[in-house]
């Protein structure tokens, strides 16, 4: 092999190795999902089924997200800790009991139609202990909605004048002001269903629908019915 060929081979190999590394980096970035968290089995709840406990926070904080500490986010309770994930595994053809601790302040619904509770068992939810079927659209802070199952639950916000707002995740009910919402819904056949927040809560983004609203792990994710 001539000197020329050796030089070209050396450069080409370097470039090829670089290319493969770039390829792997792109592929690994593209294929990264938040971890999937399973709902917990709760045989003693009304109608059997499983429990899912979530909380919404106004700022996820540097611990969970070094690049976007100011983004709003959902967190899910798993193994006694708050996990930063929005992919939940629930069983098919069963009842899911959801409890959401809402720590964020109101933004208001873009479409007030979604201020009415839809798709839950009984068509209602429990808000701080009271059973309601809709809220004031301007008080909405987030929603939990699974459109393909017809579930739309608006989550009212913590008042702006609250004395102990939760600044950064993880938030605990004992230390910060919050609203507690519970509801149940039925799952059907197996599949991967998306769920999302319908309140434009992506602060700083156009129409409030960018950033956390368009990133898995924050304001939208999957309900894996298995």
């Amino acid at each position, binding site marked *: 092999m*001539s000197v020329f*060929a050796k030089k070209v081979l050396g450069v*080409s190999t370097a470039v090829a190795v670089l290319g493969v590394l770039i390829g792997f980096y792109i592929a690994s970035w*593209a294929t990264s999902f938040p971890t999937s968290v399973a709902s917990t089995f709760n045989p003693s709840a009304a109608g059997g089924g499983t429990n899912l406990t979530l909380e919404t926070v106004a700022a996820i904080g540097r611990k969970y997200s070094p690049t976007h500490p100011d983004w709003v986010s959902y967190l899910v309770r798993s193994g006694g800790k708050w996990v930063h994930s929005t992919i939940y595994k629930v069983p098919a053809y069963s009842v899911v009991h959801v409890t959401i601790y809402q720590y964020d302040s109101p933004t208001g619904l873009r479409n007030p139609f979604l201020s009415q509770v839809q798709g839950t068992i009984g068509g209602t939810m429990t808000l701080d202990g009271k059973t309601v079927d809709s809220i004031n659209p301007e008080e909405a802070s987030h929603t939990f909605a699974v459109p393909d199952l017809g579930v739309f639950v608006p989550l009212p916000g913590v008042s702006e004048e609250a004395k102990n707002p939760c600044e950064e995740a993880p938030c605990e009910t004992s230390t910060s002001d919050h609203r507690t919402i519970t509801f149940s819904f039925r799952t059907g056949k197996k*599949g991967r269903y998306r769920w999302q927040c319908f309140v434009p809560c992506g602060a*700083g983004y156009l129409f409030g*629908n*960018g950033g956390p609203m368009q990133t898995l792990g924050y304001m939208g994710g999957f309900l894996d019915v298995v």
Partner: protein
Amino acid sequence: MSTTAESASTPQPTGRALWRRLLGFNLLSAVLLGVGGYYVGWFIGRQIGFEGSFHYQAKTDENDVALLLGYFGGVAGFLIGLGFANYPISRLLGRPPSLREKEGEGIGRYFGLCTDHKVVGIQYLVGIGVFFFVGGLNAMLIRAELLHDTPTIVGPNQYLSVVGIHGSMMMGMMTSGVLGPFANYFVPIMIGARRMAFPRVEALTFWLLMAAGFILVSTIFFGGFPTGWTGYEPLNDQAVMGMDSYICFFALVGISMALLGLNMMATIITMRAPGLTWSRLPIFVWSVFATAILMVLAAPMLIATLLMAALDRTIDTSFFIPGGGGSSYLFQNLFWFFGHPEVYVLALPGFGIVLELLPVFTRKPLWGYRLAVSGMLGVTLLSFFVWQHHLFVSGINADLRPFYMLSTEIISVPTGFIFLCVMGTLWKGRISATVPMLFCLAWAFNFLIGGTSGVVLSDVATDVQLHGSFFVMAHFHYTIMGGLVFSFFAAIYYWVPKMTGLRFNERLAKWHFWLMFISFNSTFLPLFALGIMGMPRRVSSYEPSLQGLNTWVSISAFVLGFSMLIFIVNTVCSMIFARQPAESNRWRSKSIEWQVPTPVPVHNFDQIPTFDSDPYDYGTPPVVGGAQPSAAGA
């Protein structure tokens, strides 16, 4: 046509020590200064755009101003490091002009600023090849995800970025895909000139494109972009920081395109050798000229549009935001006013290559030369009058639609001229099925399907179902990939032996062709059906009933990717290891580039040639008073 050319000496390395060669204006300095420039821009951006002036940046943890200035600084540093500022500064200081740079320094000249158009041509070929490969890998990831009917391998947002990177990379790179490598290398030779009109600008267009490609890939560090290659507002404004990479990428591509087109036009208009009238110009040069007109007129529109989008994203202007007085229609119209001529930038060089190669492989003159030229110029002119067919169902004024339907239907007429010329050249020819010829015939097959599906889409009523569906995907993949990319490979197999003096492995080349042709059709023909069955574009969740067809398409796509691997293996083995010398004029072409020695001397010709006819002097002339039809017209 008569030419005189003596063999000239090949460039010799200058023999300086390696460390001395590394210090100076070269790629290494360029990369270092680029990184430095990026951080300078980023720092300035942070000072401008943080805490106070742009309140949203505190809430989103994103600073678009910093990123855009960072990219700007990075590109400036990169270009300065390569040495592009040397000439302007030395002239400002009163030093005498230097016309040529680095033209005699061995292989190092391929890795920096070189004003030899032949070196730039080869740089383009390798550079575009690399980014084409990156775009192709993204396509493989897309098809892997589409094996499943819900987001499985790739998250839904990352999927949109992968789709966007694939589309933008391909569109940005392949617009210069033929003009960059082959026009830069061969147009001066074909017109009997020693160089391009603006050699330094020529080198600039290449390095801008390389910087652009790198910037596009860097989008994944900033969250990717969700809009696909069309970058529609207002989603564009809503997107995270990765959108700025797209904006910067396309702005640089636009600048590169405009300068490339300008250079081509100036060269072809002013530097033709004596005797080379317009009617004796090789048809490939005509296609380059028509493409250059489109590039110069359409690319600036893109740059301006992207500037407006960047302003909307950073300083809260409302060009495209309805709440602030803007309109979402404005972006669509501005983008497609560029976008439609852009796709003809992709199509025209394909026409030129096929018509240039067919006479060589049928041993007949080009049939219908004037008709072919009017076809190309007709397409060039009409391409500016059709762009609203991308907006048929968007709610534009209904009065406009019949007009744009008519104009879009009419543009198929000059396109049809090209097909008539192809068929006329094939008639009673002596066809040798060499690999370049096979790619040209495949071009005709593919572009026919692509073009006809375009006529189907141009009818508004049918467009209602097909707009935004996989039918459109199939249409443009047939015209752009089946058309341009196949003719690109025809040009590679035809001209690279001339450019390098080395031959390809014939068997691998044939395997590449047949595997590519069959798998290409197997991949994209079913997409027409998928579109008619209602699958929208840019989705990773679709109706479960469509999964079987999607699986077939994905497997075919993997085979298509494998055929590209065969090509890469062929290239690496032939050009680096085997290095078999190619015959000097294997195709027995009468075109001037085959009459000069290989490798082509630095100054192309010792004496400027004179031309007395076009290069299609093939065939046995008709017997006087005999049975063959007379060569009436042209």
